[in-house]
């Protein structure tokens, strides 16, 4: 799960819908040793509100323990549903890993 030391990377792909709620719940954990988390959703083609709820839970938890989270999202659907849910100001979304890592470097 880890890419660079101290930076945890969580990568998910495919369609994050209600049928994968449990899997998502288990994947989205704050790795204790991580000073920042990169959540790579660049291979996610679809997400529903079940997934957004899990993402929000995760990001809230991370904020509480002061671990910055950067999300890489590239699909139009993911981008749009986050906006429709009003979460675009809540999540830190980036178009690629490079941008996300720069943000995490600065924030952590």
């Amino acid at each position, binding site marked *: 799960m880890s890419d660079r030391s101290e930076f945890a990377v969580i990568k998910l792909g495919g369609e994050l819908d*209600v*049928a994968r709620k449990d899997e998502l719940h288990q994947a989205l954990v704050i790795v204790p040793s991580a000073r920042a988390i990169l959540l790579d959703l660049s291979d996610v083609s*679809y997400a*529903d*509100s079940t997934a957004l709820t899990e993402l929000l839970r995760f990001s809230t938890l991370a904020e509480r323990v002061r671990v910055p989270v950067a999300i890489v999202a590239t699909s*139009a659907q993911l981008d*749009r549903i986050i906006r*429709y849910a009003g979460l675009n100001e809540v999540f830190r979304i980036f178009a690629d890993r490079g941008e996300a890592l720069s943000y995490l470097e600065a924030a952590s």
Partner: protein
Amino acid sequence: MSCGELLLERPALLEASRPMRHALAAFLTALGVSELEQIDVITAVGEALANAVEHAYRGSHVGDVSLRARLDSDGTLAVDVVDSGRHLPAVRQIDRGFGLRIMRAIAQSIRMDATDGTALRLFFKLGA
């Protein structure tokens, strides 16, 4: 514009929502709906389907969920997502979930009948 209708009825298992979304997407593509409009429709209808498979038959024997989509040649798309389960909380609480919020942000109008299970009708105006 082209026109068409899609009706799917199957047991409301969690795994049902994905192939139902795919069938709706392919239906819209076959009728020449643009990719972005399609994404929005699938996103809204996906919420209705997710609710049906997640909530409607919770704690009871699983029943059916049906999806009916009808696209008229003037670009009006009506989609019904219907289950015959138990609509769970008070209407007030519905506003808290992201699901309805997302559907409202996308659909032109929404009608819900929760007297006997949940019947949701979403209207979209495409190709505008």
